[in-house]
């Protein structure tokens, strides 16, 4: 079966610093690919390129047979790619509910009753129902991360790009988020998960792509890379 996402020979430099040196990988439908490696080795850049916020110097991104490389971010989102950010970026002056609602109804001109129900349902899934009417800026950082996931889910993605979603979460919050992501993955949602934690990657990722400071990368299962001592905790 054709993989859902094929990334080939992505190259990117910023202000004379080469960050990506021709990275290639693929993600199958329903698969979770972990992205690990030291800071500054381009993990977030890879995500930015896939979702269209950054244009690569060379290389291509094919999603479900469609070339995403030249498309603007909003079109890529409509095609089924969702994104969360490393530092949560809630729309602070909108309520939690509105944050999700605007994503649910992004492609429409008029709100339908279905949209409100769907937003409510998504918020229930991430456990934010009790804070629906709060201004998003008031949430704790753990709750903000869940809002990030909720907002990304609202666009009905088939591929979810998660940039360190577990950072700074309490044990309880981490467990809840892990359960949510696992359940979403069981339902067929593919993911690319950037994380430093081997514990997280071992639980969630089917395969891991390890980036290095020199620009090379290694691919394997979490078990393989752990055994070689490549992954740190």
């Amino acid at each position, binding site marked *: 079966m054709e993989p859902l996402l094929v990334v080939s020979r992505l190259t990117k430099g910023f202000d004379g610093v080469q960050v990506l040196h021709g990275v290639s990988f693929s993600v199958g439908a329903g698969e979770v690919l972990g992205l690990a490696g030291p800071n500054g080795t381009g993990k977030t850049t890879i995500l930015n390129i896939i979702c269209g916020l950054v244009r690569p110097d060379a290389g291509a991104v094919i999603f479900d047979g469609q070339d995403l490389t030249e498309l603007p971010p*909003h079109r890529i*989102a409509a095609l089924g790619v969702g994104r969360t*950010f490393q530092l949560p*970026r809630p729309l602070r002056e909108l309520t939690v509910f509105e944050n999700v*609602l*605007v994503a649910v109804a*992004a492609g*429409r001109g008029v*709100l339908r009753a279905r949209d409100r129900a769907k937003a409510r349902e998504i918020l229930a899934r991430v456990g934010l129902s009790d804070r629906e009417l709060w201004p998003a800026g008031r949430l704790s950082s753990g709750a903000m991360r869940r809002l990030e996931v909720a907002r*990304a889910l609202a666009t009905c993605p088939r591929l979810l790009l998660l940039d360190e979603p577990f950072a700074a979460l309490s044990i309880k919050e981490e467990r809840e988020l892990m359960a949510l992501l696992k359940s979403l993955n069981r339902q067929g949602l593919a993911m690319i998960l950037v994380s430093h934690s081997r514990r997280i990657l071992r639980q969630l990722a089917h395969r891991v792509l390890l980036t290095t400071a020199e620009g090379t990368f290694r691919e394997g299962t979490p078990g393989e890379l752990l055994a070689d001592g490549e992954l740190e905790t």
Partner: protein
Amino acid sequence: MNRAAVLAFVLVVSLLAVVPWLTTDRFLLNLLILANIYTIYVLGWDFLGGLAGHSNGGHALSFGGAAYLSGLLTLAGCPAWTIPALSLFGITLVGALLGWLFRRLDGAYLLLATLAVAEVAHELSLALGFTTPEGYTIGGEGGLPVAPLLAREADWFYGCLFWISLFFLALTVLVLYWIRCSLPGLKIKALAQDAVVAQTVGLNPDRFRVATFAAGTLVGGLAGVLYAQYMGVATPSTLSLEFSFVAMTVSIAGGKGTIIGPAVLSYLLNVLLGWLWVAPVVRLLLYSSVAILAARWFFGRGREA
């Protein structure tokens, strides 16, 4: 949607509507007509700069541009009844074009670019002019005459124009407020707060940029067309930097993006400053001080904007 605010607004408008029946005092009617017109003008900025977050440094262009289009169409001999609509259409097109042209700009850069364009228009209005064989000056400081739809000499001219301007003010406030509380308004706010995030959930920033510029210019242009009809002339001051500045100040001080707040503030300021015959120098001192203080109040360190 703040039902109480809308209700209060409708009440106030209804009360105002009675005024021409109570008095024919031209001074008062003139004051109120200009208050209506200038408030519509400010709302144009509040929508584009306040709600959508695109700081337009040249909002006077929509007002004076529409007025001057009316003048130019008059010069070209267009039938008087077509002029308002054509002027409005023309300036809205210009606004949409500028929105598209400057779509990659934000913040102070957008403000500067739009300010520059408006200043060019202002300079052209001052510099371009000619004298007819009969000795009349057309253009330059004196501006362009505008063919009126209503006879200015008639008794009921002031009353009529008051009702017309009041009607359009009420319409503008209600429509803009409704947009603000609706789904498009939500999207506009989302894009204003974080365009990057908004794009990743599927919102098209360029399309909204052009739409909000068109809308803001349309509203400002509406005020300009009404002004041209009322005054019978389009003058360079309608394109001035000070005039653009006033729109920004009143919108920010009234609570930018709230529509109702700036509308109320604009109305009160215009009536008060007009009633007291406050000189332009003092007015501008007041507005500039208010701008500095309001900016500090709403955007000062420690307060989230």
